[in-house]
């Protein structure tokens, strides 16, 4: 049955889309205020570890997710403090947080679980069909018979589009990333905007990580994030730092991920590593084609100092 195969594939893609959307929309949101985050991979690992352990210890996935969000918020707060208040280099601090996350995620797991022969298991996220809508043929099962995190990431993308382009708060946020001095001179709070977006971005990234053990196997492994954090950065550039295109790009990245898994299972001639390479190749390719038209916020990665003459 062609049809049911497509539906099955598409609903798997929707499952896989969540971490890409959450991590890249977070990256994009902070980028809109000029903060360039590179610690996605590390924060996702911490989110995965904290989320898993929280769920394991409490027996509730929701508590796991909340704890993960909290850990991400702390990472975001730290990034904002070091870059916006202490004015240290965003890239260096971002990398430091990545390495810290890498270490901490392992440490947490070892501390709580220790070395066991039988790895701990948590329940996975259940599908929550939406009444009526889930009955629609084809679209129903793809879009409306998913877990809550899938709904959340779709709604988040819609909300960000509305918020950034159709509200005056969005206008102010974007102005901070385009020209912080201009924003400052009309009373837009530059530092506060950066703190808020950094914290929200950290929470989204940690949730992206926490989702991973909760969706497929219910278990945690060291390599669980598997480069998705780095891909999120590429995806954000590819999406021109706009929430619409990032959503589309996430579909593509998730699609390739599912295809790669399929190919592995079905034993197509192509090696698995090659398929895993496709998102990176696609990123380079699309960037080559569009780099002149893709815009990044003008002050991306630059700290703002009111009294410095160079940050005109």
């Amino acid at each position, binding site marked *: 049955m062609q049809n049911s195969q497509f539906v099955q594939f598409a609903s798997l893609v929707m499952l896989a889309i969540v971490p890409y959307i959450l991590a890249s929309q977070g990256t994009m949101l902070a980028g809109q205020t000029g903060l360039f985050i590179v610690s996605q991979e590390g924060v996702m690992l911490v989110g995965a570890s904290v989320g898993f352990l929280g769920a394991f210890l409490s027996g509730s996935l929701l508590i796991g997710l909340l704890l993960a969000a909290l850990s991400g918020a702390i990472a975001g707060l730290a990034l904002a403090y070091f870059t916006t208040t202490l004015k240290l280099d965003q890239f260096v601090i971002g990398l430091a947080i990545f390495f810290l996350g890498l270490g901490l995620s392992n440490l947490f797991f070892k501390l709580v679980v220790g070395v066991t022969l039988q790895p701990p298991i948590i329940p996975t996220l259940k599908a929550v069909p939406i009444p009526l809508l889930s009955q629609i043929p084809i679209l129903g099962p793809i879009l409306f018979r998913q877990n809550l995190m899938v709904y959340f990431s779709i709604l988040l993308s819609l909300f960000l589009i509305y918020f950034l382009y*159709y*509200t*005056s*708060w*969005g*206008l*102010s946020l*974007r*102005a901070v990333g*385009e*020209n912080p*001095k*201009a*924003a*400052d*001179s*009309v*009373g*837009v*709070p530059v530092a506060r905007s950066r703190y808020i977006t950094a914290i929200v971005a950290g929470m989204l990234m940690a949730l992206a990580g926490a989702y991973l053990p909760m969706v497929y196997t219910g278990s945690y492994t060291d390599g669980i994030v598997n480069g998705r954090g780095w891909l999120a950065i590429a995806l954000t550039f590819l999406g021109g730092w706009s929430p619409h295109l990032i959503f589309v790009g996430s579909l593509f990245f998730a699609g390739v991920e599912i295809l790669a898994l399929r190919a592995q299972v079905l034993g197509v001639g192509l090696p698995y590593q090659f398929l895993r390479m496709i998102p990176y190749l696609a990123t380079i390719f699309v960037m080559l084609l569009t780099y*002149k038209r893709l*815009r990044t916020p*003008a002050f991306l990665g630059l700290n703002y100092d*009111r*009294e410095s003459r160079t940050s*005109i």
Partner: protein
Amino acid sequence: MKQVSPPLLQLQGISKSFGPLLALKDVNLTIQHREIHGLLGGNGAGKTTLMNVLFGLYKPNAGQVILRGQTIHIQSPRDAIHHGIGMVHQHFLQVPHFTVVQNIVLGSRLHNRPTLNLTRATERIQDLCQRFGLEADPNAHIIDLPMGVRQRVEILKALYRGVDVLILDEPTTNLTPQEVDSLFESLQRMVAEGMSVVFITHKLREVMQVCDTISVLRAGEHQLTLPRTQVSEELIVRTMVGSDIDLDESILFAATAPQESSSSRTGPPVLDVQGLTLTAESNTPQVDDVSLQVHAGEIVGIAGVAGNGQQELLEAVLGIRTADRGQIRFQNEELGHCSTRDRLRRGIAYVPEDRVQDGILPTATIAQNSILGVHDRPPYSQHGILKWPIITQHAQHLIAEYHIQTQGAGQQAGNLSGGNLQRLILARALAQPIQLLILHNPTSGLDIPTVEQIYRQIRQRRQEGLAVLLVSDDLDELMLLSDRIAVLYRGALVGHLQQKDFDKYEIGRMMSGVYNHV
């Protein structure tokens, strides 16, 4: 007892330092109701710093601000706006990718924050445009607008917030003379409506034309405040420059027009550009069919509003950019695909607009910078080995001759102040045997004595037979120095005037693309 109403705004005992530099020393300034107050001073006098303190961008070390008799505390631009103080910065603070109306409403209280419906804001802006004679299309994107309109947007931004005091920092820098006049009209309308305006400039004529009261700042200290009717130009100039320069000898403040140059302009030109065209990625020419000659012993000025292809034209002449079409001949030889290095070797010197970025190696020493470009040639180097004693001697010689203030040739060039840096760059250019000197905004942002010195050098070299191509945004400078002026508009030369025909309004028309003169 008669109650005297307090002045609108008083700044008292303001001091501000940047590290070791004391930029403001105990400055007092009083702004009355309904006046245009001219704040005059040479570059680096502290005008911008003082107003940035008032606007909450800089935190003063000492001093207080009194508004209508009451001390207020301004911690940020937000507070300043709240107290009815608006500022138009010298470098426009705008988001190029936003529209005019978006830039104007940014950060202001909107009635419909969650919907960002800008209809009402747009109407209000159109109303302001009308009332103050400031034309601007609210829905245009900033990036597409010429400088003059961006300037008006900056003013509208302040008016939209309903300010009582409007500070304008060097607002005429990028305007044509016509635009300057209409700006002054708008300012007068504002005062008629009850506002006060602080007008910052380093140009004497402008304050004499429009201001009610004039204050002069020099080296961070307040010198005087007087009604315009009680001051003479001479008094103001003397106060501005102090005893630093001899006014009778001054080029900048010369009362009479410069004498006709003695250049005969016979023989082939030193620089001969024919049909030079440079096309940008978007297919609109950045330099459009430019033909231009510069002869020995003459200064040719290129006027134009900044961003009309000046940089591109110069870089094409120097071979930094490759032209799509056209010929460049230097001393009768086609430069063709000559590298930039070769062009410089043949006797062209270039003083770029951006001193720090394009002019020097900031972390290298003054000595190293003083031989950049000739560092691989005798006498500075032999067989690839630098001869430090000779280089140091050379640098010391330049430091003395050009009065570069520094502790020695071993100091980092990046630590020089703007004026001393420009002296070094000019010294380096003139130290070698050259036939053509290309200058781009050679005096922008420099203090008065340095400007004098640079003008003197340029004139003297012209007298000695050097060909000079002077590109400047400052029309007064061009009219003061040039033998001829050509006007650049959207990459094309749209007009050409001999010294006897110089007229700033005529040039202004050409600068804004309105020309019938060929």
